């Protein structure tokens, strides 16, 4: 595997964003891309917590439904009309992705050149109580604090 997974991950996350009809790559797209890198320890850690790609998609829809319900809107995601995705569109990096990348880079141990990996990205993703990923993991009934601790420990013990 490449020593720097950012390019692989951003490409997969961009595909997720496109599929989602999103004009930007957000943290939830990175989470899905990460879960899709099945050979990585980060994806395996997610799976141990019940977070397969499929489970994440289900939880994302549930978070969406529940957040709409706050505004009094009852929507069943399966019944929403579909739009053909824009395959020619290149979604750019959204603010939530910029934040998670910054958090990933800042996480200990100090980052050497070109050595960012999936586990570090996962640590960056989990390093917040705000935003759609945190709410989605809550909706899935995942203990985010424990998952974050496990990811940090894996990163600290040399698992990139």
């Amino acid at each position, binding site marked *: 595997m490449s020593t720097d997974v950012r390019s692989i991950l951003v490409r997969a996350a961009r595909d997720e964003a496109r599929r989602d*009809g999103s004009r930007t790559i957000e943290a939830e797209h990175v989470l899905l891309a990460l879960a899709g890198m099945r050979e990585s320890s980060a994806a395996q850690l997610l799976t141990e917590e019940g977070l397969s790609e499929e489970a994440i998609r289900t939880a994302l829809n549930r978070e969406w439904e529940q*957040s709409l319900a706050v505004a009094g809107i009852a929507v069943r995601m399966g019944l929403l009309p579909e*739009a053909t995705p*824009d395959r020619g569109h290149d979604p750019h990096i959204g603010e939530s992705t910029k934040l998670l990348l910054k958090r990933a880079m800042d996480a200990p141990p100090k980052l050497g050149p070109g050595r960012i990996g999936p586990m570090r990205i996962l640590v960056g993703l989990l390093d917040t109580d*705000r935003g759609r990923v945190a*709410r989605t993991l809550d909706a899935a009934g995942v203990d985010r604090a424990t998952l974050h601790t496990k990811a940090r420990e894996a990163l600290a013990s040399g698992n990139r």
Partner: protein
Amino acid sequence: MTELVDPEDPAAGLAAVVALRRLADRLEDSQVERAMRSGWSWSEVAEVLGVTRQAVHKKHARRLLAAGVALRRR
């Protein structure tokens, strides 16, 4: 699965804003597509959405062409 709904909680209220934007985007993409497949013109779609014809064209034309929708000139 856990319930996230608490109308007193600003986190839930702000998440609702994000969710509504997503819903509006999804509806716009699907309904513009539906209208154009039904033979509407860009001008008609633009009038209903309250934006310029250029704006709606710029936002949706490439996607709909790629999706094989036969687009009217006006």
